């Protein structure tokens, strides 16, 4: 079970979700984020953080296409765990219909390694098993 990023993230990409995600399972495209379904632990912390309300549990109906898209692009886009400034026109695109057809880009985003995106401040805690 996983959470899934859907259409309204496109061109909004607020990135509030990446800051709260405990398992750093967000990956960044040019104008959208996706969740790696194998890394998400279904904690649900990200869902209410999304200003665009674009994140849903995969138990909701009709999300198969988005689940596939999340799984596919999480393999190729860079990881993002540090929030940056959202696009200046993010609010203009919030709620605009047909964003996937008109605006989706398969190009990768910059992730945490470029620009001012430093690595997460905390050291990795890979050994930690709850």
């Amino acid at each position, binding site marked *: 079970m996983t959470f899934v990023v859907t259409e309204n993230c496109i061109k909004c990409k607020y990135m509030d979700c990446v800051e709260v995600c405990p*398992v750093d399972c967000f990956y960044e495209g040019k104008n959208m984020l996706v969740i790696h379904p194998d890394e998400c*632990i279904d904690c649900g912390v990200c869902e209410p953080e999304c200003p665009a309300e674009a994140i849903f549990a995969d138990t909701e109906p009709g999300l198969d296409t988005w689940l596939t898209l999340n799984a596919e692009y999480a393999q190729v886009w860079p990881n993002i765990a540090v929030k940056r400034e959202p696009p200046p026109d993010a609010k203009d695109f919030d709620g605009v219909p047909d964003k996937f057809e008109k605006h989706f880009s398969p190009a990768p985003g910059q992730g945490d390694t470029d620009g001012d995106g430093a690595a997460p401040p905390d050291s990795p805690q890979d050994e*930690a098993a*709850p």
Partner: protein
Amino acid sequence: MDATLQTKPDPGTQAGGCCGCCPPEPTKLTEVTEPAIRLLVDRFYAKVRDDAELGPIFRRTVADWDTHLSTMRDFWSSIMLTSGRYHGNPVTAHRRIEGMTPALFEHWLGLFAETCNELFDEAVAATFMDKARRIATSLNLALFYRPEHDRPRSAP
């Protein structure tokens, strides 16, 4: 540390019982706070270490309990208070543990529920358990039911 914790009265224990002859009713915590999370984590893992099924696995896996408890406080703080303090990969961490079974997740949840119910009122305990169940289900699926993962499973 754990033995001391177990013998301490519950936080907020009221002085005196209903009639003076019964043990005092412990006051349950009604809010999720950092100190509450600390209390939960410390008490829960004290139980885990004494548990016949989970104890041996955790003793084998956890090299430094102070570090582990600190990490688990960060984890639950990130989950319940969105503090963002924990960054890790629990799926990978669990995949490395020898002897994991789906039943162990259920057992873990039982012990966690017991601890939550001791410390928190019904609503707060339910919030913790909702998160814990979702995460356990997710880890269970990741470990045992995703065929693309490379390591052989010890359970279906």
